[in-house]
């Protein structure tokens, strides 16, 4: 039966520990843009949003509710402990989980077959960042790991180090930290004791800890590169330039989609601001891609039947999205193989340093 609207459920964390990873703002903005142009095959897109409070049970409950309302797809907390059971449960009704920003490798191990992520898994960003580091002549690296963020904080630095060592570099030391660290002095003392001084440190984490680390390293006279992952891709990192643009001089990160000034994301954010949506940062912006992908699937399938839409998405040669020209799931089935941007800073302004699909991604599945 033909529905009059295309419904997308978002059982996402607006509060709680993972609140910064939700894709609501970009999705809302994109849905409004599409609806303003007549919708998808004449059907408007409707977003059903519920706060999961970062809690798995709450997310699944909301998802079950959405199922009753006939959604085409669902987005949720981008961590596998929620995405897997949720996908299993909504999969019984043929509904897909389509994530705007999930980089977790586990989701692509074949546990669930109704999962699609708009971005490439973590090893890609690690490899891209490592490749750029090698180009800068980085040889000796130290990495920071933590168990607090799952494989994202624990494994990604190791993948980075793997690429470095495979190309003749050295992993000098692995340092540990925990979420909420507000003083890295002990780790910095360790870094300072390294001989030779490290060329680069890698950490897959987010603000404000990153800011503290950068500041304390620079204050301690360590001028090694500080390299990171998509967690760096947040406006609050750029804000360090207000203190001192030099703080960001030797900082870069591999991320999910280009977000420097003049990039498509940047333009999208400005367009959204004009129609009254504040879309702040990478993760919120990527919600727009997710909406575009679903819209494309509905159009191609000619229906809102979730399974048909999923098939259509997977068989499409290219799907135009907001953040890059297009993505495709034809080869990978569950994630978009994208060019990975490496972004750095010049005088405190973001610049795109490289954009490639890395060839030398460490084995991850």
């Amino acid at each position, binding site marked *: 039966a033909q529905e009059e609207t295309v419904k997308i459920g978002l059982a996402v964390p*607006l*509060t*709680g*520990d993972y609140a910064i990873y939700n894709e609501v703002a970009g999705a809302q903005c994109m849905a409004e843009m599409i609806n303003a142009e007549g919708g998808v095959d004449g059907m408007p897109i409707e977003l059903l*949003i*519920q*706060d999961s*409070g*970062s*809690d*798995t*049970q*709450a997310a*699944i*409950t*909301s998802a*079950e*509710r959405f*199922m*009753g309302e006939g959604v085409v797809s669902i987005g949720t907390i981008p*961590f*596998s*402990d*929620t*995405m*897997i*059971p949720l996908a*299993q449960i909504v999969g019984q009704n043929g509904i897909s989980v389509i994530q705007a920003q999930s980089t*977790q490798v*586990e989701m692509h*191990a*074949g*546990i669930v077959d109704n999962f699609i992520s708009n971005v490439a898994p973590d090893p890609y960003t690690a490899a891209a960042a490592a490749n750029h580091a090698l180009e800068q002549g980085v040889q000796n690296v130290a990495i920071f790991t933590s*168990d*607090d*963020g*799952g*494989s994202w904080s*624990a494994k990604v630095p190791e993948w980075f180090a793997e690429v470095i060592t495979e190309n003749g570099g050295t992993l000098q030391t692995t340092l540990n930290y925990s979420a909420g660290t507000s003083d890295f002095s002990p780790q910095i003392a360790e870094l300072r004791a390294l001989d030779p001084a490290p060329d680069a440190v890698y950490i897959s984490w987010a603000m404000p800890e990153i800011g503290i680390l950068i500041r304390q390293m620079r204050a301690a006279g360590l001028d090694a590169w500080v390299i990171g992952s998509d967690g760096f891709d947040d406006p609050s990192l750029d804000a360090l330039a207000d203190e001192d643009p030099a703080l960001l001089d030797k900082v870069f990160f591999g991320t999910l989609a280009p977000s420097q000034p003049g990039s498509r994301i940047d333009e999208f954010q400005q367009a959204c601001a004009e129609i009254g949506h504040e879309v702040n940062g990478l993760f919120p912006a990527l919600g727009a891609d997710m909406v575009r992908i679903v819209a494309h699937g509905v159009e191609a399938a000619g229906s809102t039947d979730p399974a048909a839409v999923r098939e259509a998405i997977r068989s499409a040669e290219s799907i135009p999205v907001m953040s890059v020209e297009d993505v495709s799931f034809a080869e990978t089935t569950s994630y978009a193989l994208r060019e990975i941007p490496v972004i750095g800073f010049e005088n405190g302004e973001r610049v795109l340093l490289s954009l490639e699909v890395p060839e030398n991604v460490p084995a991850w599945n």
Partner: protein
Amino acid sequence: MTRLNASQRRGLIGALLLSLLILLIVGLYALWGESWQARVLYAAFVNLIVVIGLQTFMGNANFAVFSHAAFMGIAAYAAAICVTPVAMKAVSLPDAPWGLNAFEMSPLASALVALGITGTLGLLTGLFMSRLTGVGVTIVSIAILVIVHSIFLHRTDIFKGNQALFGIPRIFGLTHVTVLAIVAIFAARLFRESAVGLRLRAAADDEIGARAMGVDVHRARLVAWVVSTLFFAAAGIAYAFFLGTISARPFYFNFVFLTVAMLILGGLRSVSGAVFGTLLITIGLELVRWLETGPTLAGVKLPQMLGLSGLLLGVVIVAVMAFRPHGLMGNREIEDLVLPRKGTS
């Protein structure tokens, strides 16, 4: 000596009344409920078992403890690792040590193993928990929570940390957890009215007075502690068997706050309080979740106010503490509302 004294008989009546309430709710759902509400009910009953377990220690001994999520997690992981088929574990736990991914057990055996492991850990921790006093109990319980959580996070080869341990057979449904909840209610009531329960409550009021009356305070606390960990274990098993995927995340502070708030609202001194508190907060949270999405009420579109649910918990705790420090029920049990005691003037 199986003859029950007057309080214990009243306890059974009370437990029966509470069970009827639970059955009534399940009945209402069966008749008119929507499918997503089954999940709400399931989660509520799992929480109920935890809150009742909390009541057996916190309520009777009058200490605030926060380690229950840890024990629940231990049981959930133990049951999950035992029950998940070998073929699935090859994918989900490829690096597990000690042959953990090379065996599988029946659900019943897995549950028993989980209860056994959790109970043993309860006993070991209880040996020193029962010796601590005052705030020390709270702090060591927090230490247990943090330590267990760190181990979950760190030993990713066994627990997968904040990633998912998936592929657990989804064995349990609403019926199972309803039965478990009712068993828990009876067990907690009988414990409260037992000699140990009575001594524990006496010691909570006046430890020195109780010792002078021959109460072995440490032993009573130890027994209650171990019993309460078994409740948490049951809840953990039910959680894992229902969801099919677990991670370290749900077994931490957020869950602790939620369940403690439930207990406080109802009143930690009584089992009925634990039940009412759990039900009320569950309903309240669902209401808030619905309100915060900005529904249309009587033709008026309410504004969207996402994020209120967290606030609600805090407000409930503070308001209850300010206006009814002993919770809705205080010292009373459900049967005290229905059948007044003789001789009270």
